C-alpha cells in the first residue's frame, strides 16, 4: 500500500484526527494566550513577581513532555484533560515571556504622555501599552503554537486526541504493514498543520497591527 492509498482508504478517520488535532491546539493556545497575557499584565511592573512567574513557567518547560503527561495522568486520568493541561502549560512560557518583554519595551515616555493627558491606568494599558506590545506578544503566540503542535503529537501517549495516534500506532508496529505509512501521515499532517497555523497567525498579525508601528521611517 502506498502512502496515497493509505490516506485514501481511511480519509474519514484521518480528516477527523487532523481536525481534532487542529482544534485541540487552537483551544490550548487560546487558553494559554489568555492566561499568559493576563499573568504578564499582572506581574510586569514588579521585578520579583516577574522573576517568579517566568521562573515557574521555565521550570515547567524543563520537564520532559512525556514525563509531564505521565504525571498528569495520576490526577486527571487518560484522554483529553491531561493532554490539554500539558499543552497549555508548555504554551504558557513563550506567551508570558513575550508579554512581559513587550510591555516593558513600551517607551516609558509614551506611558508618561498618556498619563499626563489624563488617561486612567486601564486606558493606558488597553489604548497604548497592549497595542504597542502586540507584535511581540503575537510572536510569542506563534512560538507557542509551533511548540504545542509537537507536544500535541505526544499527547497520544495518554490517549489524547489528534494525529499523535497515527505516529504512536505506527511506531508500535514497526515493520508491520502500514506502520511507516501511519507514522508518515502523522508527522506530515502535523507539519502541514503547523505551517497553516503559522500562516494564519502572520495574517492575523498583519490585520491587527497598526500601520503606524509597521512603518519604519
Amino acid at each position, binding site marked *: 500500500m502506498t502512502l496515497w492509498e493509505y490516506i485514501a482508504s481511511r480519509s474519514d478517520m484521518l480528516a477527523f484526527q487532523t481536525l481534532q488535532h487542529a482544534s485541540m491546539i487552537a483551544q490550548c493556545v487560546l487558553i494559554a494566550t489568555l492566561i499568559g497575557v493576563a499573568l504578564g499584565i499582572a506581574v510586569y511592573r514588579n521585578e520579583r513577581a516577574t522573576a517568579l512567574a517566568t521562573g515557574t513557567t521555565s521550570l515547567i518547560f524543563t520537564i520532559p513532555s512525556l514525563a509531564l503527561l505521565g504525571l498528569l495522568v495520576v490526577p486527571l486520568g487518560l484522554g483529553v484533560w491531561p493532554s490539554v493541561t500539558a499543552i497549555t502549560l508548555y504554551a504558557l512560557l513563550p506567551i508570558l515571556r513575550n508579554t512581559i518583554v513587550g510591555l516593558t519595551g513600551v517607551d516609558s515616555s*509614551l506611558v508618561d*504622555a498618556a498619563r*499626563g*493627558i489624563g488617561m486612567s491606568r486601564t486606558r493606558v494599558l488597553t*489604548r497604548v501599552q497592549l497595542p504597542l506590545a502586540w507584535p511581540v506578544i503575537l510572536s510569542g503566540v506563534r512560538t507557542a503554537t509551533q511548540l504545542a503542535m509537537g507536544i500535541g503529537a505526544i499527547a497520544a501517549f495518554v490517549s489524547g486526541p489528534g494525529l499523535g495516534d497515527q505516529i504512536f500506532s505506527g511506531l508500535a508496529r514497526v515493520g508491520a504493514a502500514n506502520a511507516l505509512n501511519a507514522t508518515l501521515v502523522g508527522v506530515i499532517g502535523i507539519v502541514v498543520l503547523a505551517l497553516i497555523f503559522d500562516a494564519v497567525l502572520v495574517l492575523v498579525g498583519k490585520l491587527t497591527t*497598526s500601520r503606524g*508601528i509597521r512603518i519604519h*521611517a
Partner: protein
Amino acid sequence: MPESTETPQSLAELAADGERTGGVPIELIDVVKRFSGTKGAAVDDLTMTIPAGEIVVLLGPSGCGKTTTMRMINRLIEPTSGRILIGGLDARAQKPDELRRHIGYVIQQAGLFPHLTVGSNIAQVPQMLGWEKDRISARVDELLELVGLAPDEFRDRYPRQLSGGQQQRVGVARALAADPPVMLMDEPFGALDPITRENLQDELLRLQDELSKTIVFVTHDVDEALKLGDRIAILGTGSKIVQYATAEEILTNPADSYVEQFIGGESAMKLLKLTRVSDVALEQAVRATEADSAADVRRKLEEAESDWVIVLDAQDRPLRWESLADLEGATGTIGDLTAGEDDLFDTVISGRATLQEAVEALLNAEAEVVPVVGRRRRYVGAVTLSTVQQAIAEIKERERRQRKQRAAEAQPGVAV
C-alpha cells in the same frame, strides 16, 4: 451658558465656563517633595505664583527639581506637603485623571502614540471627555491649522511619517485639544535641531499671543528661557528659587554669582537678542519725496544740521538716501537727481526684529545707518550702531533705577 453664580469646583468646570479659555494663575504654597530613599528633598519648601496668561520658565541645571516641580502641578507626582492652587482651586481636591485632561502636557520628543494617526492622537482628550464625533473632527482640523499643519495632508498620517518638528507641533496640538487654561511643557524642543527649535519657539510665541494660556516651561537652555519667558525662575538645588524675574532684569541685575554663572557672560549680547527694534528710540532722518524740490530739501537739511535725507515713495516706503553733497547746486525735484542711479535700499529691517538682527544688518549692509520699517514696509525711523549702544545703556540704567527704588521701598524709614 448662563452666568452661573456658583463657583466652579474643578478645573473642568472652570475650563467649560468661557468660550475660549485664557490662562488661570497657579500658586505653589510651601510645596515639599521628598522621594523615599533619598537624603535631601527634591523640592524643598517652594512657594511661587505663576500669573495667569504668562509663560513662566523654570530654568536650572539637571537634577535641580524643576521637572519634579512641574509634574506636581498636574499630579503626576504628588507633593509630600504643601498646596497647589490652579485658578484658585486646590489640585488635590480633584481627581488626577480629570485634572490632567484640562492641563495641556507636552514632553520632549512629543510622546505621540506611534500606532495612532495624527488625528487620533489629537483626539484622545476630547474622546475621554465624551465629545461627539463631529465636534472632535472639527476640533482636530482646527488645531492642525493652528499649529501650521494642513489638516488634509496630516490628519491621517502616522507620527513616524513626520519630522521631529512636525511631531512636536502635533504634540502641542494634542495638549491644546480641550482648550486647557494651563499648559505644562517639559523641555519640548530639547531634542530638535537648532533651526527647527528656533522656528517652534517663534511659533509658540505666536500661539501664545493668540491664546494667552498660563504656560509652565521647563528647560536648561538659557537662551530658550530668555527668549520665551515672560518671567524666569532660576532654580538651584532642591528647587530653591534663586531669582524669579523678567529676562531683562535677570540679565541686568543677576541676584547672585550663581545666576551670573548660570546665564553666562555676554549679558549685553543677550540683551541684544531680547530687545526689539521697535522698543528703542530710533534716529529720525529728514524725509523727502521724489516730488519735493531739491532746494527745499537742502534748506531742511541745513535746519536739522544733518547730511542725509531719506527719500520715500508715495506709500512712505523708503527708497534711498541722498546726501547734502548730492543736493548741492541741484535744481528741480529730488526725483531728477537719480536718473540711472541704482542705489536703492536692499537692506531694511523690520521693527519686530531684535537688536541683534539690526546689528547684523548694519554690519552686512556696509552702511552706517539702516532704515527701519513697520507695517506694509512703511518707514518709521533708522538705526545706527550708536542707537543700539544707547538702547542697551538705557535698559541698564532703567534697571539700576528700579533696583534702587525697590531697595528703598524694602527699607522704609531709613534716611538715605
